């Protein structure tokens, strides 16, 4: 059972990337502006909870993941881990305990593994750098254990191999094993199966879901695939252009979506489309606008089939539409 206490809490988290203005802009004194990749997000992850962060390409999912894993520095807001403010902690030594408890799984496992390191060294790297083992025997045991929990059996067969000698699914398992090796409390998984063959996806997802059952590990599962999110997550947060438009339990988001964007996303997926009890909304039109030019008012209004005057002027706040179910739309209540 998921614990109610939050392990991770994001409060109005904001990541803006400055745009280098051209010479012309600078001469005219025009402000260069910023890419508002993440534009004020409130999100929490409970102990042992699986939260899916869903959004189209460019919505800022990876950027959120990079902030949580301290690969990117937020420009505003706060990040709390077990109630401790981690936003401005940056020194490697101060981060070590945090790294021990928060790990990441990358989308492209081939890119995430150093081609010149063996599988043993790759999985041993966190144990060595975080000084979690005392001797070679312990190290070998922990590496074996991690490879086995990631489904690479027998582990010894993989020790001496190089990443290019493995299949795509095995490589992703190695990345997972590396994250598991330190026994973290939270794993950020950034589209962990989107590069894999459909036939292997289920096995990798099973490994991730098992972690929660065995070790009560929390998971922030980043994906663009809403049905997949429903399959694996307890709660779903829908991200659009750097802002959460709807958040709630997986079932509510999937079967009683209240935000037109969520509805459109669901309609766009054949196996979930046409459910009863959902507002009639035509399929999504057009591209996601650039995060460098976020529309005024509701950021979804240029693509929203239900948009009206107020949407073009005022940004809707998150409105409670059910227990722990928020939607940021003027029509939500």
């Amino acid at each position, binding site marked *: 059972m998921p614990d109610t206490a939050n392990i991770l809490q994001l409060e109005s988290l904001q990541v803006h990337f400055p745009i280098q203005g051209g010479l012309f802009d600078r001469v005219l004194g025009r402000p260069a502006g910023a890419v508002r990749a993440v534009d004020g997000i409130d999100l929490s992850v409970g102990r042992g909870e699986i939260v899916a962060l869903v959004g189209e390409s460019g919505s800022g999912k990876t950027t959120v993941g990079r902030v949580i894993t301290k*690969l990117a520095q937020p420009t505003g807001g706060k990040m709390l881990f077990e109630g401790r403010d981690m936003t401005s902690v940056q020194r*490697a030594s101060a981060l070590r305990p945090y*790294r021990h408890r928060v790990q990441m799984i990358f989308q*492209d496992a081939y890119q*995430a*593994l150093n*081609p010149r390191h063996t599988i043993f060294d790759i999985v041993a*790297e966190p144990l060595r750098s975080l000084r979690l083992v005392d001797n070679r025997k312990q190290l070998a045991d922990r590496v074996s254990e991690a490879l086995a929990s990631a489904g690479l059996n027998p582990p010894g067969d993989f020790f*001496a191999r190089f990443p290019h000698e493995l299949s795509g699914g095995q490589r992703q398992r190695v990345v997972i094993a590396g994250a598991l090796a330190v026994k973290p409390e939270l794993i950020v998984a950034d589209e962990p199966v989107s590069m894999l063959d459909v036939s292997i996806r289920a096995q990798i997802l099973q490994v991730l879901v098992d972690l929660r059952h065995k070790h009560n590990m929390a998971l922030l599962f980043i994906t663009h695939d809403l049905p997949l999110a429903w399959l694996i997550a307890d709660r779903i947060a829908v991200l659009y252009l750097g802002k959460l438009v709807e958040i709630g339990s997986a079932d509510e988001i999937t079967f009683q979506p209240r935000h037109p964007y969520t509805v459109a996303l669901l309609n766009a997926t054949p196996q979930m489309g046409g459910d009863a009890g959902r507002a009639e909304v035509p399929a999504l039109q057009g591209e996601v606008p650039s995060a460098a030019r976020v529309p005024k008012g509701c950021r979804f209004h240029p693509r929203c089939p239900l948009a009206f005057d107020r949407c073009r002027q005022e940004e809707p706040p998150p409105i409670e539409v059910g227990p722990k179910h928020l939607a940021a739309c003027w029509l939500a209540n």
Partner: protein
Amino acid sequence: MSESIIRYSGRQARAIKTFLGRFLGYGGAQVGLVCLAFFIVVAAVPDILVGPLQTAINATGEFLAPPSSQHVLGTDEVGRDVLNLVVHGARISLTIALLATVISLVVGTTIGMTAGYYGGVVDVWLMRFTDFFFVMPSFVLALVITPVVVEVIGRGQEILGFRPSLFVILVVIGMTSWAFVARIVRSQTLSLKERTFIDRARVVGSSNFSIMVRHILPNLVPQIAANGALVVAGAIFVETSLSFLGLGDPLQPSWGTLLSLAQRAGAASAGAWWYLGAPGACVLTVSLSFVLIGNALDDTFNPRRRVIP
């Protein structure tokens, strides 16, 4: 454990074998390696091949005699055997070039990698520093350093077996050639540090130092090796020109010093082609071998993308 260690070394051996197979497949690499092996043997045992270095005192031949059965490469203006001089010169020239290259690779890699990895202010200042050395003419630097070194260690003394003027040449070549290495290493580091495996290394808690040493450096080896060979070729040329300009040491003559002596003895106008030709041909052959090896290494590491500066 031991079983996997054995297999590990087996794999390494196999990787090295494939690499050598491809590398030796290039004609340029074969020619370069054969020439180089020849000169290394010559430089290793000059006394066995041609006896001790001849001086004006123990010279035996005629003055500026053309090649004959006794003096295969003729003699110089004081009657020394040119073959003897050239063989002994090989040791000096190669040692200086290789040591200068080591200095240049160590300094260039350290500075280039640090600048590229940390970026920002560190990068700006380190690259300004690098550009300063990049445009510095080696001759001017040698002129500035020579009196300092001579003053500090005293005339006639030796540093690490080198007489002061040779030590100056060594340092000057090292100082003027690392900037080239630093620039290449920096640009390669800039692209390497964007790779996802560096992000992963940070997430799993690796320190900056260990990321540089364990992740970036091994991936720089191809660039460093290929360019290192080119740096040696350049070092031989610079050594030759500095010595030719008179910065060498007549008591430890390199090929450049011999060219300089030949020039001053009027070898060209006297028609003593052997005196200028022998060291000149050696310089050209050795530099060319290193260029060939460097290009072959580059081709082996990146078969498609071929960039020769």
